[in-house]
């Protein structure tokens, strides 16, 4: 063994934050996502949205449950990129394909807005309320709005996915909630005791 010595040479995670939100008893398998390539080609938008749906269903129990409740379809139209995809769901599977099915409601907005929703930087409801995404329905049905909202939810990543869990903040919030609950409980108990006292 030779220890090489300087003397011989005189020259000198990213643990994603809120994955803990996944609730184990909601861990039943969610719908399977299929990205259709009917024409032998798949657009970047279909691939990206399909993979986001797949990843979210895998990672987040709440989105998995909502996805399994959805029935019907929604069209996503990126108005500034001439890209249109249709997402269909039947509880067991979700199919993403290029093109528009005219029977389904259409969520239309800028590509950046969809990217912001998909990445968790913007809530889908906020985007609709701010008219950055519009909902157009062939015939207005309450179910269409629910379906569109549901797809927006399943497609979106919680903001907290990109943040470190702030446990100190959580402990403060939890303490405030516990104190508030205790106060409400105490007030309720006092009211009941007063009533009982008056009855007696």
């Amino acid at each position, binding site marked *: 063994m030779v220890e090489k010595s300087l003397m011989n040479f005189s020259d000198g995670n990213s643990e*994603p934050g809120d994955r803990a939100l996944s609730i184990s008893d909601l861990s039943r398998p969610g719908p399977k996502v299929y990205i259709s390539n009917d024409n032998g080609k798949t657009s970047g*938008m279909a691939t*990206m949205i399909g*993979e986001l749906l797949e*990843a979210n269903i895998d990672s987040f129990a709440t989105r998995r449950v909502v996805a399994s409740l959805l029935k019907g379809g929604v069209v996503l139209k990126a108005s500034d990129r001439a890209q249109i995809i249709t997402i269909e769901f039947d509880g067991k599977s979700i199919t993403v394909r290029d093109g528009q099915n005219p029977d389904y409601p259409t969520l239309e907005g800028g*590509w950046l807005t969809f990217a912001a929703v*998909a*990445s968790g930087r913007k809530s889908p409801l906020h985007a609709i309320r701010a008219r950055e995404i519009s909902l157009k329905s062939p015939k207005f049905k309450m179910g269409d709005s629910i379906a569109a909202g549901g797809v927006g939810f399943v497609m979106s990543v919680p903001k907290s996915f990109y943040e470190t869990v702030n446990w100190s903040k959580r402990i403060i919030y939890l303490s405030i909630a516990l104190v508030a609950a205790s106060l409400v409980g105490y007030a309720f108990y006092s009211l009941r005791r007063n009533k009982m006292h008056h009855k007696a």
Partner: protein
Amino acid sequence: MRESYDVIIIGAGHNGLTLGAYLARSGLEVLVLERRHEEGGGLTTEELTRPGFLHNVHANYHTFVDLAPPVKDLEIREHGVKYVRPEVQMASIYPDKTALVVYSDIDKTCDSISRFSAKDAATFRKLFNEAHGYVDLLLGTLMFEPPMSVKELTKALSVFGVGNRSEFLSVKLRRETINQFLDEHFESPKVKAHLAFHGAVCGYANDIVGLAIGFPLLVGKINNWHLSIGGSHRLAHALWRDLANHGGVLVTDAEVASVVVDGNRVSGVRLADGTEITARKLVASTVSVEQTFLEFLDRDKVSNDLVSNELFEKIETEIKHQSWSLFSVHLALSKLPHYLAGEFEPDVDKAWVVNLGYSSPEELNDDWKLIRNNQLADPKPNVAINSLYDPTDAPEGSYTGLLRQFAPYSIGSLGPGAWVEEARHYGEKCIESWRAFAPDMDAEAIIDWTTYSPHDIATKLPNMVKGDWMMGEISLANMLDQRPLPELGNYRTPIEGLYMAGSTQHPHGFITFAPAYNALSVIAQDIGLDQWWKKV
């Protein structure tokens, strides 16, 4: 050498030395153990042909200079490494004696491409500008960070809005081959052949599904190839100097026989001569997964709860290696080659690297099929004349040359040992194929030459299993957190304090420094090290 250190690193390749230097700079007592007589691993420069002719036996192209954080953090240049970025980086010469040239100047490159297709020149410029613009982002998210999963990558690309801003970058690339990417964007078979060959030289075979996802990054640094003046080994020496300057110790001729485990935790290593050395904090292996788990660990003594039999079996059977290797001919030359294609493009004679013969990606596809079937393809080597840009690597008035040919590890059913008989003959064929493009490379011009086969690679550096110079297949299934196996994909192992920090890990081989740099992040997190280095 003392009896105990904070950190023991197995293997003094560029990853082992890089990790050692960072940890030594962090105030830890570091010991790096090397089986061979010198540090460097793939950073080997030897006088293979004649005295005074310096040949880079393995790593020749340094493409991450100025991009990889260790170059600055470890003051590589201050330790004496000098890089040159050749003005004429690479050329492809086609059988009809036309030639395409890539310069360090992208305008000149586009002019050269436009001689084959004006549309492709415009597309290349757009692709380069986009990819180059995203290089920092891609380096930060894909190279110099512990790996994310492909699904997380999808989200990250969305967060950065890459898909929205780019005509070329998209998550759908994970379903495409480089060939498909090239067909989608380019029209000239010769331009496509050049780009496909460039990918292959970087380890990315053009016919493997999923590798299109890494291709834009390769294009983004297509003009960033650097040559280490005086040989690639200078970098290894500089890394060692940094290690030593900060109190780290390198011991050569020290073959590790076993990694010692005490309960759930690694406690040190035992050398082949029986010497035991204690590791107070950690052991990091930069050699192969097979060596680390199947040779260094005593399977009978490691609890099944710690490393399951299933994991041992997966390591035995499921580690993926490149299905092709490299055959090299190292030459001592009395004159520089003059190519017939010089009439079409005089700058080919100044090109550091010249690719010979492929005029379409399909021809490359055909050769992959042969090579994966353990057959030797008709040679179409790439030729590097380092002396064009490094006059110190050969005696005055003489030059070094390197022919590299894609080749199988085993030949037919004869196995890798058949290279001992075949190497000289195949070397002659490589030289003949070169001579067809540069007739002046006759017997008088070639003072001496020797071969270096896939079998030689595996024999000299056993961590390059089956001549796998990338230390693991380059494929989507063996990328990011799946490399080398999902269970070992984040530099940690099931044994507390035992880390994997070599090119078996994300991202891959080549002189990237990235496996060590990323393992460092994980180690820093685990042992609570103050991070003095600036993140990408």
